[in-house]
């Protein structure tokens, strides 16, 4: 189809006009373009969340500071947490799911390309809706965890909580759609010969993550709907005076919230499991165990939620049970770390930027994991929960872990996605500054927590011994900010005049490195036949047991390319997402808008479902 041939990334055809280019992005169903949309949106929200963190750090730089007031500070930490979890780390992972899963499993796209576009546009709608609260002066202020009954109409009468609760519901729809899409993609779209155990470990960890998403998000959705009914329709689910129970929210939230932690970390673990073998030039050590550990983490992830609630008074039996299950989950996590060390052991390690971030992940995530073991013990947790010790702990997991892993992934796959190499020197400067800033910011917070500094306080007294290390922590935060400015500079500079990447710049092991950088719209001219987890490596070097490298297949003919069917662009995903946003924002504006938006949504869903597309003959799988 000529119309979308013009819209492929890296295509030779010039995009005719500026508006044509814009339209091509708005209507794209190409998993690679959607991946880029996810990644760039997520990076912008990452910067917004980062700026919120910097303002908080400035406020806390000295005691009794008055840079921002109580209300603003409470808004900042609410939006920082919500943004980083839902609008930065999750969509950054989604960006790699989108771009890399089809490439790694040898597919031409995801199972439902239009649904994929819909996921992205709903995500963007939810993110913008949440940030519209700044425009209306009703920024969410109940914490990212939004504990009932502080979120009830009685104690939070303004629209602040409404923006948060509706925004999260919109984002939940997006995550659910994407989750199912990737599950079907991974189950159905693998190239011939790619058995489950031959799947790259990143795909495996993504696979587990999708299960977590589709099983965990309904829990928070239930919680949010009960909250919505309480706030809008006067029900009393969380109102203790009427026999409701605020702890119901905590259970529903953490039944989502703990698997969410693994939703945030497993993709990064998958990325690290790709980077280490590539740069150690050795297969992942005990790959099946790494995979099983990922599955175990996902499975146990649903049985540990109440370790966030050791202080609420659940009684000794529940405390003991959740303590044991939490300690149990440390076993597969520790196993993974040792398997990564085993991967490096005996390798021929090439120190390039992606590897730095992967090593940073291991070094920092280990610390986060070990401090996590401390508060797996409820008596210890009673001293540590809701203090800066926990803030330090989960930043070692989510920044030292997820962000290091995801930026490792960004440096690793950047040449594949853009066709340009990022500058190695700037990349290493970024890494070292980030490493330094990260440890300066968060390591002292362990100490601050142990000497009693609680979380979520906008001010503190000067005589508690917290002053000096808070100042250091603030300096560290700005060091992190500088490191990301270097990343941005690196991106701008290499986009303008970077070196052109070969299809396989790192001597990779998996299928994405067997196709051009950036890949053509159809990814694989010929769907590959897969023989091993490290299929490309075997093609290049043989199996290491005397097996010769596999003979290269003949050149792809023009007729083969012409026969590839790719799905046409569609504007229904974005319009449907807008219609839904109109409907949901009506809850804050007027009933008529809900009705109009609802009807519009139904109409768009109908058109979306009935949109004509070509019969599936000649489809790639």
């Amino acid at each position, binding site marked *: 189809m000529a119309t979308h041939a013009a819209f492929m990334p890296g295509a030779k055809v010039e995009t005719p006009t500026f508006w044509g280019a814009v339209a091509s992005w708005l209507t794209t169903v190409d998993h690679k373009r959607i991946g880029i949309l996810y990644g760039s949106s997520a990076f912008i929200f990452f910067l917004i969340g980062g700026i919120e963190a910097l303002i908080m750090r400035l406020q806390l730089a000295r005691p009794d500071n008055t840079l921002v007031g109580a209300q603003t500070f409470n808004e900042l930490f609410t939006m920082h947490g919500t943004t980083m979890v839902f609008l930065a780390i999750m969509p950054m992972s989604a960006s790699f799911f989108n771009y890399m899963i089809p490439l790694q499993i040898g597919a031409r796209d995801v199972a439902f390309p239009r649904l994929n576009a819909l996921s992205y546009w709903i995500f963007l709608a939810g993110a913008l809706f949440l940030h519209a609260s700044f425009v209306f002066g009703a920024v969410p202020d109940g914490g990212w965890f939004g504990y009932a009954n502080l979120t009830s109409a009685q104690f939070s009468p303004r629209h602040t909580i409404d923006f948060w609760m509706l925004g999260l519901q919109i984002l939940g729809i997006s995550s659910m759609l994407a989750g199912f899409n990737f599950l079907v993609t991974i189950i159905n779209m693998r190239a011939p010969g790619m058995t489950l155990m031959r799947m790259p470990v990143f795909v495996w960890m993504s696979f587990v993550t999708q299960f977590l998403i589709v099983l965990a998000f309904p829990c928070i959705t239930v919680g949010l709907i009960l909250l919505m009914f309480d706030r809008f329709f006067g029900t009393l689910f969380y109102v203790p005076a009427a026999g409701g129970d605020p702890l119901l929210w905590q259970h529903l939230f953490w039944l989502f919230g703990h698997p969410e932690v693994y939703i945030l970390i497993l993709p990064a673990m998958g990325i690290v499991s790709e980077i280490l073998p590539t740069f150690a030039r050795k297969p992942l050590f005990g790959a099946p165990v790494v995979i099983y550990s990922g599955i175990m983490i996902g499975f146990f992830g649903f049985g540990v939620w109440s370790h966030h609630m050791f202080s*609420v008074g659940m009684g000794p039996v529940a405390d003991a049970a959740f303590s044991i299950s939490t300690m149990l989950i440390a076993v597969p996590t520790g196993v993974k770390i040792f398997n990564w060390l085993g991967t490096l052991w005996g390798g021929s390690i090439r120190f390039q930027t992606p590897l730095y971030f992967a090593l940073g992940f291991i070094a920092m995530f280990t610390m986060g994991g070990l401090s996590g073991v*401390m508060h797996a013990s409820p008596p210890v947790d009673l001293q540590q929960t809701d203090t800066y010790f926990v803030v330090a702990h989960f930043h070692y997991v989510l920044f030292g872990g997820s962000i290091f892993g995801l930026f490792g992934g960004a440096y690793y796959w950047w040449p594949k996605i853009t066709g340009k190499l990022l500058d190695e020197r700037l990349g290493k400067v970024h890494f070292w500054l980030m490493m330094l800033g990260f440890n300066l910011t968060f390591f002292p917070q362990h100490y601050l927590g142990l000497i009693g500094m609680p979380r979520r306080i906008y001010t503190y007294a000067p005589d508690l011994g917290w002053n000096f290390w808070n100042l250091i922590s603030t300096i560290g935060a700005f060091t992190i900010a500088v490191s990301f400015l270097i990343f941005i500079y690196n991106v701008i500079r290499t986009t303008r005049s970077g070196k052109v990447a070969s299809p396989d710049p790192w001597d990779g092991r998996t299928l994405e490195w067997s196709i051009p950088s950036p890949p053509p719209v159809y990814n694989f001219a010929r769907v590959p036949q897969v023989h091993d987890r490290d299929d490309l490596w075997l093609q290049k070097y043989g199996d290491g047991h005397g097996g010769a490298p596999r003979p290269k297949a003949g050149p792809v003919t023009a007729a083969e390319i012409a026969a590839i069917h790719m799905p046409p662009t569609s504007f229904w995903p974005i319009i449907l997402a807008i219609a839904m946003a109109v409907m949901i924002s009506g809850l804050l504006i007027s009933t008529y808008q809900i009705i109009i938006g609802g009807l519009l949504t139904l109409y768009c869903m109908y058109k979306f479902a009935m949109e004509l597309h070509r019969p599936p003959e000649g489809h790639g799988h």
Partner: protein
Amino acid sequence: MPPQRSTVSRFPKRRPDWTLVGLLGAVVFLTSACSWVGWNWDTPMSTVIPKSDFGKTTHAIFMLISWWTLGIFIAVEGILLYACWRFRERPGAAIPKQVHGHTVLEISWTIAFAVILLIFAIPTIQAIFKTQEAPAATALRVEVFGKQWWWEFRYPQHKITTANELHLPTGQAAAFFLNAPDVIHSFWIPQLGGKRDVVPHRVNLLTMTPEVPGEYPGQCAEYCGMSHANMRFRVIVHTPADFEKWVKSQQTAPVEPTDPVAQQGKTIFTQSACVGCHTINGVSAGHIGPDLTHFASRKTFAGSLMTTTPENLVKWIENPEHMKPGALMPNLGMKGEQSKALAAYLLSLK
């Protein structure tokens, strides 16, 4: 740093930069070392120098886990750095042996982790059950009410009510019955042990026996709205004899003010909205705000934010919101002489 390349070849020519890897260790080491220099553990809200049986039980487990995890940390980071140095790519090196795993090794470290965790689990479970036992009949009962954003403490055995200042004797178990009339709070005295949430319409229990007399700050540890950061309190642990003295002083009725300004303050108090919220034994019986019967005996007020001085009191009365954002005490429009008189009256309530 590797030389810039026009395109990346499969085997780039480069010098080993394991010095950079060394830096990885250096950063971690320096940060820790710097921190060590500035570490003072004996601070007002320190959790690591426990002053009660409860705090000591939890601290012992904390130390046990800390030493083990420190060992594991050193092992992992050590292996990581060593592997990076030992197995760095050398010029002209062959492709390394494609090892896929080692079953015995993998099973060994899985079992090792499980055993280490068992070492943590056993004392943990013992401590969970021990620290949550029902309080003894001889325990001092204290009803704690966490409210936005201050604390009320009632001693049903002694018929005393106080605010933001908790008095305890050493050597006698204190049983805290935790109540929240509004939203969830968390009751925490770091030096005396861990925290327990204060949840609406459920009475949580926390028991501990303070061992060392002294003054310890406490603070709400669960985000509870606008002035969460300002919801502090003070704990004074007395010797049993001193505690008896304090109980006696609190049980006596407040003396009538003799100073004319204070007397005028009393008149203002009784004729204004103050009485709707505050109790002063024999004067008023409001229950929304803190009991002021022995207000002047407390060193701090307003969620333990301010020391009890005439200047602070005047400022507070004239604009509560300014000193504690979101404060539920309304600004009654008291000005100049009025607020000074009120402050004088309150300060007479020893």
